[in-house]
């Protein structure tokens, strides 16, 4: 995890731009802060009446047109300057970048799915090469979400039924957090993803390689990786605790009580059905909120996931 050094750490071109605007407003804000609070405290101390002191006759000052003029005009000019600087910075954040790689983002309760030009889908991990602009075309399948990368100082709400856009200009390799910034329900604060910025060579290798570098790893191990990167753990625990959905611990082979009063044994068919068509059988006491993973996880993937679930005794 990268750190957030105040006013440095140029993770992206936008980072420094926004911080410059921030500093500009800090300077004007500090000016007014010391001006007003300075006079407030100075007057309060200077003109206080001490205990037992007789009340002084005070001057009948009731106003000053000149002063009113000054403290209307000068603040107006300064805040206009803030507006203009903020506007210019915003234009840069929103300006389309030529030659950008286009990646589609689909948000849903409560995970992020990234679709690359070649059709590969990755959940909760956006991997991009450093130095190359990226255009995100974003939509949601359910409620409003917010795509937020604090290190890039960038944020854009993601809406159902329409597309919103964001341009990224990564300048540093590393892993940065992606938050969901728009409240979207129970799993909102677990709807995190990673922005992984790698060197162009590394990215090319990853792009050419198979979607999953299966190698010689065991089926259950691959299932574990899939469960982690598909966002399952936002709602399902591995330790028996209750989250949005039921725990995965000890699930396989056990009796499950359903909301319609019947019960079922959690075998391979049940698990596969629950992944592809989660609304078909709802576990008693849990809300019917799980999205389908049809098209996201292949049959091979699901087989691997089930193999992994078998190991969670």
């Amino acid at each position, binding site marked *: 995890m990268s750190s957030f050094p105040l006013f440095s750490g140029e993770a992206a071109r936008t980072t420094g731009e926004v911080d410059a605007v921030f500093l500009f407003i800090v300077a004007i804000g500090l000016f007014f802060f010391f001006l007003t609070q300075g006079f*407030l405290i100075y007057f309060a101390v200077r003109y206080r009446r001490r205990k037992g002191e007789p009340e*002084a006759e*005070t001057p009948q000052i009731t106003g000053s047109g000149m002063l009113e003029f000054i403290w209307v005009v000068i603040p107006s000019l300064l*805040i206009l300057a803030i507006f203009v600087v*903020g506007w210019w910075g915003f234009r840069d954040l929103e300006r389309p970048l030529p030659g950008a790689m286009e990646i589609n983002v689909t948000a849903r309760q409560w995970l992020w799915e990234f679709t690359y030009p070649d059709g590969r889908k990755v959940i909760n991990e956006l991997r991009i090469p450093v130095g190359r602009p990226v255009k995100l075309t974003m939509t949601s399948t359910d409620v409003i979400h917010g795509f937020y990368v*604090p290190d890039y100082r960038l944020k854009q709400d993601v809406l*159902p039924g*329409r597309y919103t856009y964001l341009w990224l200009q990564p300048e540093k390799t590393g892993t940065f957090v992606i938050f969901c910034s728009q409240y*979207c329900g129970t799993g909102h*604060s677990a709807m995190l993803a990673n922005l992984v910025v790698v060197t162009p060579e590394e990215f090319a290798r990853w792009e050419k390689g198979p979607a999953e570098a299966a190698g010689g790893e065991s089926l259950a191990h691959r299932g574990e990786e899939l469960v982690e990167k598909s966002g399952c753990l936002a709602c399902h625990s591995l330790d028996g605790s209750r989250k949005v959905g039921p725990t995965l611990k000890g699930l396989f082979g056990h009796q499950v009580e359903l909301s319609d009063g019947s019960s079922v044994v959690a075998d391979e068919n049940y698990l596969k059905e629950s992944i592809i068509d989660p609304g078909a059988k709802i576990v008693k006491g849990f809300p019917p909120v799980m999205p389908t993973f049809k098209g996201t996880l292949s049959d091979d993937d699901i087989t691997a996931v089930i193999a992994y679930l078998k190991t969670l005794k």
Partner: protein
Amino acid sequence: MSHTDAHAINEDRGYLTERGFRSWACTLDHKRIGVLYLFTTLFFFLAGGVIALLMRLELLTPGPTLMSDHTYNVLFTLHGAIMIFLFIIPGIPSGMGNFFIPLLIGARDVAFPRLNLLSYWIFIGGIVVILASLVSPMDTGWTFYTPYSARTGAAVATLSLGIFLVGMSSILTGLNFIVTTHRLRAPGLTWHRLPLFIWAMYATSIIQVIATPVVGITFLLLAAERIFGIGFFDPAKGGDPLLFQHFFWFYSHPVVYVMILPAMGVITEIIPVFSRKPIFGYRAIAYSSLAIAFIGFLVWGHHMFVSGMSHVAGVIFSFLTFFVAVPTGVKVFNWIATLYRGSITFESPMLYALTFIFLFVIGGLTGPFLGALATDVHLHDTYFVVAHFHYTMMGGTVMGLFAGLHYWFPKMTGRMLNETVAKLAWAITFVGFNTTFFVMFILGYHGMPRRYAEYLPKYHADNVFATVGSWILAVGVVIMFANFVWGMFWGEKASANPWRGLTLEWQTPSPPPTENFDEIPTVTDWPYGYGKKAV
């Protein structure tokens, strides 16, 4: 108390003489209705505060501490909805406004006393409906954003109806105050002799009457979407979620001035009294209230810069937003100029009034970060926003309310508060408030999103700091309220005018008789001629 010289203590209990349930429930006396509003709203302030403490406790550790994520989401929704709809919007306007508008303008009551009682009971009806929604408590946030609010299993329609009723009560009260101010001013009390609290309340009432119907209709549409499945806002049914946000903020932005303007009015009354000096820039303060109310209607879109709204609209809203700062600044500068060459004493009302300025200026100066487009993109929906609005709303409005409660306590109850305890509570509250909320600016700059039940470990230390602050703040508030209760029953009897104020409420006994004044006063001058030898 040292200032008992002005008037003899009146043993009469004034408007409080009559006892019994009916004497309160069916009263047409604006003072009693004001007291009913104050008790109701302060109860919900404490309830919302307890919820806030639970939330801070949950945030003591990055992971789950004592509740599920869903429970946390319910709590922040309740905290927001209770504090906004049941405490801060009705608190000063309906509570103090009811009690003091007729007294300050030399009237015997508001223009429509029966309507006034009706609006209180509609308010209570709204509260009952809102409490009924707790059977399936809301988890949408107080902003009700669709489509989430159209889909969640919570009792959104019930809560919407409750808020609709509370809004109706707010409209009726605003209407009543506008007519009262126009029609019932004492002889000689011209507009430019009005106490500035009245100007602030007048501006507030205009916003209430114009803006509240919009949110009422919005909540009805939302209820219709949920109950009948009509697609106003849900894109799956052909609606538009941004339409909801526009409707919602068209009310909910102006309403922040319903929250802050009355508090500014209270502060404006207190500062000259304790500085023994005329208010500086009377007309500038009076007109800036109207300017804030007017400009406040044009800036709602600054809540939506990253919502997907067009960028052109964003630029226009950003531009307009900055102009709210000008009349607000004018008020602050005039308050400070009033102190110049005064003869200042620091009784508890004055301490809270100066605290209001101090904290509100911090809240105000952090506004431009959110009004400027480039920085808002980063800070929107983070703890920076949470810090900003708590500095303006709690550091501003609530401190203004506390100032007013300490200032007018003798008039309302006929008794004095314990000044030493009041100052102790002030000091603890001040420290607790800043400990709790200042660190949230830093959290927000570092990217911690709001409404997160769980957070990354790197935010842990700051959150521990804020949670400890919330305990200090709670201690301060508990001491203050204990002082209120003690003062109500056992406080020293108050004279008619313990602070030697010149406004009309001080020219009648404490507590005032039911008819307010034995004889309606004739006004010959403005109420801010402090510091002359003759006074």
